[in-house]
């Protein structure tokens, strides 16, 4: 081994703690960067690729066939700004059942002779395109599980058509739930219903404003009210990317925190290691090392642990990315997402380059030192800084070790600043995570609506052929269940919620209409704006519904797919991410004329004050048993994989950042302790006990920890205030104050003390070493 190699190897071995700290800090920076970078890359890729390949429709518009002819719609393709168009295609809302299964859910069927080419080329995933009547292609995202050869019947239609599933397809812009040949459409369209679908691509369609302008242009020459629904590709894109996009602001925050923090700490550690080795550098130069060799030796000493940390960080980043990428894959079905190799390459080269640059800058400065000056380092004393602080602390009515410790940061302000920055970022991370967990909890609470003391869950809907056993099972009559609840001793208030599947013009897929009987305003629904319903004919809807339908509070929407269309006025915006926010909450009387199927009804009960919930449930269940329903204590709270993933990720990333912060403190205090070993020896020779030594070292980080904690908390709160609404925006949700303003005064104080805790944790080990240092050895130390 060359002399240089030996110096590098011995340096790495000699400074074991610094080597470890550089390795760990680098590992965490790389893991956070790989995770963040990968998610940023994959979050947009699958949809963008598929949209470009299939030439997705920038805008799909649903027209009322009774108000506009196919010919006039064809002319809209020539509107200025339209680069290509497809249609008009006949559309119908149908509710098929498969192979004798229970009641069908509504779906939008479109009549198209072929999968298309210039606009919205539907991708066949399995089977073939229908060539004649009696055949149907189902969307991969259809509510019916698509199986080739499956027979679909349409109970509500005259003539009782039966179609065979011949293919499974996917439209990137989700223009339909199923496709048939145009000649099939009359049989699927009830008299007086049905519509036309036009699909447009525009020359400019990058923004919502451009899409709105395009929509106005293509409908301006058509009768008012002819367009009954519109769907922008931006809405579809947002829905498709929702799950992954949710992670993006979160990861940007953590990635940036991790990267900045690790850069600071790695830089500080490397610079400090070189600084602490200045005398050694002098010795190396005295025995013949050139300045360049010295620089290479110290860069090498930093790069070895950094390289090991980088390798481990890449591994950790890949492992952490697995659950997040799995979520993304679910969104795109068969897509198999992996971390882009160039992300790994960029992170590896970036981090190692950074470490090398920092080490080089520090070593270059030391390498340029005159040998005689480098050799003299450590012999003299230059403790001129912070004397005022030592004097001031000495006057305070505090034990001497505490006073000595408190003054210490002022003697080495740069080092204290570096430690404080590490603690600051650690506190920001902890504060941010606490807020995020609380906010996600609020979202889950809003989603679960589980403030009820007792719930009678709705029976599960039928999916597939009914077995003889299930046919025999009695269906609970919602009215009878409600009557039993009303009569139950201890019932304070109750309401029932029936879930009815319907469609809304212009939006593919089903919409859940939640029809309430009784006052549900106390049921835990979190309003974003507007108000709860007061009377039949009013509805509240989640933000994604407003976005998908292009409606606002005060507008009306028409719910289709029931016995007759039902128009309701939107009076409020509610926070509810279930069913991708495609829900309509209204009074059951709003749907009275449309004869909805109310089988899927749950009942929510608040018991009177002082009532024993368990006893109430037991008594109620005796009354409900003959009705085929069962009550349970508590609400219908359901967990969420995404929340679990986000909470786990944030916990892991926070722990990593806290660990890096503590390592930064450990390194700083360790350097400080080494530098002060003689001083500590003097103190011990004068009678400082080990406990007093520990107290002195620990209090040396108290000021730093407190200041960093006090600054970190408001910054963490600010970061949360920026990231969480951005996450909500990514998920298409507007978040009310109750979800954003989750920090309370009582929580902020312990969070601020968290900075002190991180600093103390980092200083504990060096404090122990200082306490155990042999006094006689310390006194002899140069």
């Amino acid at each position: 081994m060359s002399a240089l190699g030996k110096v590098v190897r011995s340096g790495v071995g000699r400074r074991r703690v610094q080597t470890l700290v550089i390795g760990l800090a680098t590992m965490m920076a790389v893991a956070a960067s790989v995770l963040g970078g990968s998610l940023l890359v994959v979050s947009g890729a699958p949809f963008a690729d598929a949209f470009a390949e299939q030439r997705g429709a920038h805008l799909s518009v649903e027209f009322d066939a009774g108000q506009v002819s196919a010919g006039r719609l064809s002319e809209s393709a020539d509107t200025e700004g339209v680069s290509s168009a497809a249609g008009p295609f006949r559309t119908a809302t149908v509710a098929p059942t498969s192979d004798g299964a229970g009641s069908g859910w509504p779906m939008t069927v479109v009549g198209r002779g072929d999968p298309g080419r210039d606009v919205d080329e539907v991708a066949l995933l399995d089977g073939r395109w229908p060539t004649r009547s009696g055949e149907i292609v189902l969307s991969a995202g259809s509510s019916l599980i698509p199986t080739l050869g499956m027979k679909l019947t349409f109970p509500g239609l005259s003539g009782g058509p039966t179609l065979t599933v011949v293919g499974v397809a996917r439209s990137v812009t989700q223009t339909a739930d199923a496709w048939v040949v145009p000649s099939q459409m009359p049989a699927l369209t009830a008299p007086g219903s049905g519509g036309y679908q036009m699909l447009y691509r525009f020359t400019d369609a990058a923004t919502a404003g451009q899409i709105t302008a395009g929509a106005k242009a293509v409908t301006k020459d058509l009768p008012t009210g002819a367009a009954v629904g519109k769907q922008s590709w931006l809405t579809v894109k947002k829905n498709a990317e929702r799950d992954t996009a949710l992670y993006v602001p979160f990861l940007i925050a953590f990635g940036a925190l991790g990267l900045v923090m690790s850069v600071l700490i790695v830089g500080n550690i490397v610079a400090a290691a070189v600084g602490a080795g200045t005398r050694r550098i002098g010795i190396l130069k005295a025995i013949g090392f050139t300045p360049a060799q010295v620089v290479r030796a110290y860069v090498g000493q930093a790069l070895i642990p950094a390289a090991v940390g980088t390798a481990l960080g890449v591994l950790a980043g890949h492992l952490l990315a697995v659950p997040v990428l799995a979520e993304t894959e679910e969104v795109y079905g068969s897509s198999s997402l992996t971390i882009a190799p160039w992300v790994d390459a960029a992170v590896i080269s970036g981090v190692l380059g950074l470490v090398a640059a920092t080490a080089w800058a520090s070593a270059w400065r030391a390498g340029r030192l005159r040998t005689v000056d480098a050799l003299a380092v450590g012999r003299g004393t230059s403790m001129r800084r912070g004397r005022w602080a030592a004097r001031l602390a000495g006057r305070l009515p505090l034990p001497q070790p505490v006073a000595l410790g408190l003054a210490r940061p002022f003697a080495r302000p740069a080092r204290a600043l570096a430690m404080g920055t590490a603690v600051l970022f650690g506190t920001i991370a902890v504060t941010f995570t606490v807020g995020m967990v609380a906010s996600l909890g609020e979202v889950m609470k809003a989603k679960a609506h589980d403030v009820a003391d007792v719930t009678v869950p709705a029976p599960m809907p039928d999916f597939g052929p009914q077995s003889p056993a299930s046919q025999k099972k009695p269906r609970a009559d919602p009215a009878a269940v409600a009557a039993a609840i009303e009569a139950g001793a201890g019932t304070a208030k109750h309401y029932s919620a029936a879930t009815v599947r319907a469609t809304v013009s212009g939006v593919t897929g089903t919409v859940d209409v939640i029809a309430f009987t009784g006052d549900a305003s106390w049921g835990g629904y979190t309003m974003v704006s507007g108000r709860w319903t007061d009377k039949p004919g009013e509805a509240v809807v989640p933000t994604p519904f407003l976005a998908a339908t292009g409606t606002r509070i005060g507008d009306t929407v028409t719910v289709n797919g029931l016995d007759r269309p039902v128009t309701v006025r939107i009076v409020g915006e509610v926070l509810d991410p279930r069913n991708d926010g495609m829900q309509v909450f209204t009074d059951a009387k709003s749907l009275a004329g449309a004869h909805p199927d109310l089988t899927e009804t749950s009942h929510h009960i608040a018991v009177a004050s002082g009532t024993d919930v368990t006893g109430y449930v037991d008594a109620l269940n005796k009354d409900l048993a003959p009705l085929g329903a069962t009550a349970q204590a508590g609400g219908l709270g359901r967990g969420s994989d995404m929340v679990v993933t986000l909470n786990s990720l944030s916990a892991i990333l926070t722990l990593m950042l806290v660990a890096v912060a503590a390592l930064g403190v450990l390194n700083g205090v360790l350097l400080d302790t080494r530098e002060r070993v003689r001083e500590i020896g003097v103190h011990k020779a004068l009678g400082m006990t080990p406990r007093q030594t520990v107290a002195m070292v620990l209090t040396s980080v108290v000021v730093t920890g407190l200041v960093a904690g006090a600054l970190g908390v408001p910054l963490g709160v600010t970061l949360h205030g920026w990231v969480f609404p951005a996450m909500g925006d990514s998920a298409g949700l507007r978040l009310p104050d109750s979800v954003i303003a989750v920090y309370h005064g009582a929580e902020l104080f312990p969070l601020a003390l968290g900075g002190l805790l991180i600093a103390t944790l980092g200083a504990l080990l060096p404090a122990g070493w200082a306490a155990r240092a042999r006094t006689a050895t310390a006194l002899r130390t140069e």
Partner: protein
Amino acid sequence: MTTPVIELREVSRRYNDGPPALHEASLTVRPGEAVAVLGPSGSGKSTLLNLVAGLDRPDAGSVTVEGVRVDRLGEAGAARYRRSKIGMVFQFFNLLDDLTVTDNVVLPARLAGMARGEADRRAAQLLETLGIDRHARAYPGRLSGGERQRVAVARALMNRPPLLLADEPTGALDTAAGQDVSKLLTDLNSEGQTIVVVTHDLALARSCTNRTVRIADGRITEDLMSPAVAPEAVR
């Protein structure tokens, strides 16, 4: 017969696998004595001083100071022992450069829990006695070597220790300053302060001690109750 201040019984200390730094050394120092421990480099002088100060522990034998079995003390006990029983003066002063002279001097008292005001009064008295009160608010870096060593002596005396240990107290001083410190130690001893001085400095040994102990290769080779010291003894 008065109780000894220091009583070493067959004390041995060996570092790693090297030769014994101290081998079965026995020594008794009585109150009011001023003892010079002489010997060449590596003879075991500093080891002896460290054992008496509770900075190190013997491998064998016992070290008793003022009735305290120092060799049996833990770290915390040894620290409390140093506070109350001994004062130490070092060759390179070991003053803390970021503390003023007064703050350096009050340090042992403050560590022992003495109130600041009381400690300040005691420090002022000591500094005046030692003739360096005009430097009370100065930092050690501004003082001469002799003045620094006086500050170190003041610090060592702060808790009124029955025993003053000095390790080469004139080793870093010029002749004039060395004589100054020597006189200071003589004066202190004349007031009854028990002193053990480890030194190469024959002049110091002659001038301020009334007993000399010679060590060579870890063994006590001579113990004389006379200040007269033969020059060849410390070669």
